[in-house]
């Protein structure tokens, strides 16, 4: 609208000039004001807010090699060197099949878990001629518990090892520095410990990022896991909450964080978090992301 009025104003100013010159000028203006879409980039620095996914995707033909660690609990004190004596690791390879679809595999030492996921970008936040307020991605992931003989002496079915997670990731970059994400999530576990533990877990997650400097940002992530109505006092599972910093160096992104969860998959993060922040059950952890490009 504004561009049209601009055209009118300028056109009225150049009216006294010859018609030919006016036409040329208008043509030139038309070219300059061709509608463009300004897509929003870098809502988050990495494909993870802290532990779980952000709306970011790997671009086509880019491979992300991720190394993630979670150490023991800080409140274990000096004898365990504040948890640093124990570590849980996840190694991941994540690849952009197209600009809007990525696939990844990983292996965590926590429950010897293999995981695989697909993440699809449905909408991209943009302004200009196409105004989309949010970026929306869908995530589907599968985890496989690879423990050898989890229950000694008993037949452990293949299905027992599987758990599924589905997430909708909705994020908006409000300003250059501030991004917010909401992620309704659903986790299904084929096997749980007791009859009171729900196989299906629904949760609502939120994550945000605040850029402090050009290369450093502060991130936080909280998931509210809905307790099933029949089990109002599930003492074992705690809502995961994590804070951290993203530090970007040349080709790497370092994410350093504090979290009450040991798990690095959706299933473990949302369903097997047992630490309480107020009791000091906090784990130090980090993710290192290195991106390799296979673009020619």
């Amino acid at each position, binding site marked *: 609208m504004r561009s049209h009025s601009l055209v009118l104003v300028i056109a009225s100013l150049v009216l006294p000039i010859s018609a030919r010159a006016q036409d040329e000028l208008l043509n030139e203006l038309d070219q300059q004001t061709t509608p463009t879409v300004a897509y929003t980039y870098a809502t988050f620095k990495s494909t993870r807010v802290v532990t779980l996914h952000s709306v970011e995707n790997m671009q086509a033909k880019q491979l992300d090699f991720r190394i993630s660690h979670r150490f023991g609990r800080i409140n274990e004190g000096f004898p365990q060197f504040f948890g640093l004596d124990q570590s849980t690791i996840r190694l991941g390879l994540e690849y952009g099949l197209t600009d809007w679809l990525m696939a990844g595999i990983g292996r965590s030492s926590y429950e010897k878990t293999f995981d695989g996921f697909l993440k699809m970008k449905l909408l991209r936040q943009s302004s200009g001629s196409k105004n989309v307020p949010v970026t929306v991605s869908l995530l589907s992931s599968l985890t496989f518990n690879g423990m050898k003989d989890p*229950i000694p002496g*008993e037949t452990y*079915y*293949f*299905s*027992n090892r*599987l758990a*599924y997670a589905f997430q909708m990731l909705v994020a908006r970059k409000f300003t250059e520095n501030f991004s917010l994400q909401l992620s309704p999530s659903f986790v*299904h576990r*084929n*096997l*749980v*410990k*007791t*009859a*009171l*533990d729900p*196989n299906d877990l629904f949760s609502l997650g939120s994550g945000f990022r605040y850029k402090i400097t050009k290369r450093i940002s502060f991130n936080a992530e909280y998931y509210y896991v809905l307790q099933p*109505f*029949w*089990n*109002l*006092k599930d*003492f074992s599972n705690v809502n995961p909450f994590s804070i951290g910093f993203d530090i970007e160096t040349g080709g790497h992104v370092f994410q350093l964080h504090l979290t009450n969860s040991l798990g690095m998959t959706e299933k473990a993060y949302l369903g097997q978090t047992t630490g309480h922040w107020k009791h000091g059950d906090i784990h130090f952890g980090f993710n290192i992301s290195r991106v390799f490009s296979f673009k020619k």
Partner: protein
Amino acid sequence: MRKILLLFATLTVLYSCYYDNEEYLYPSLSQCDTTSITFTGSVYPVLQQYCYGCHSGGSPAGNVALTNYQTISSTAANGSLFGVINGSPGFPQMPPDAPLPACQKTIIIKWIKNGYPNN
């Protein structure tokens, strides 16, 4: 061909979706040890887990505080502890949201039947 693959993948996922729990699948695992029940080792932890949410603190629900042996044994003595966890007629079901799991219920009932010793 791609449609068939997609269908196959969907079916695999649906087929492998189960609602199991270890108590049910592996009954031998549920180590419900009811041979050596003690107040401090067996009963108190159960009450702590399932009852403390409401029945403790300055103004406990129903004016019933299950915080020490004296108060717990008095509810055992007057039959109300058995009544509520067993869901007997005339007693409100406790915990109100879901009955105690079988093992925990057995532990408390056995302790009451043993004469609610303070051990």
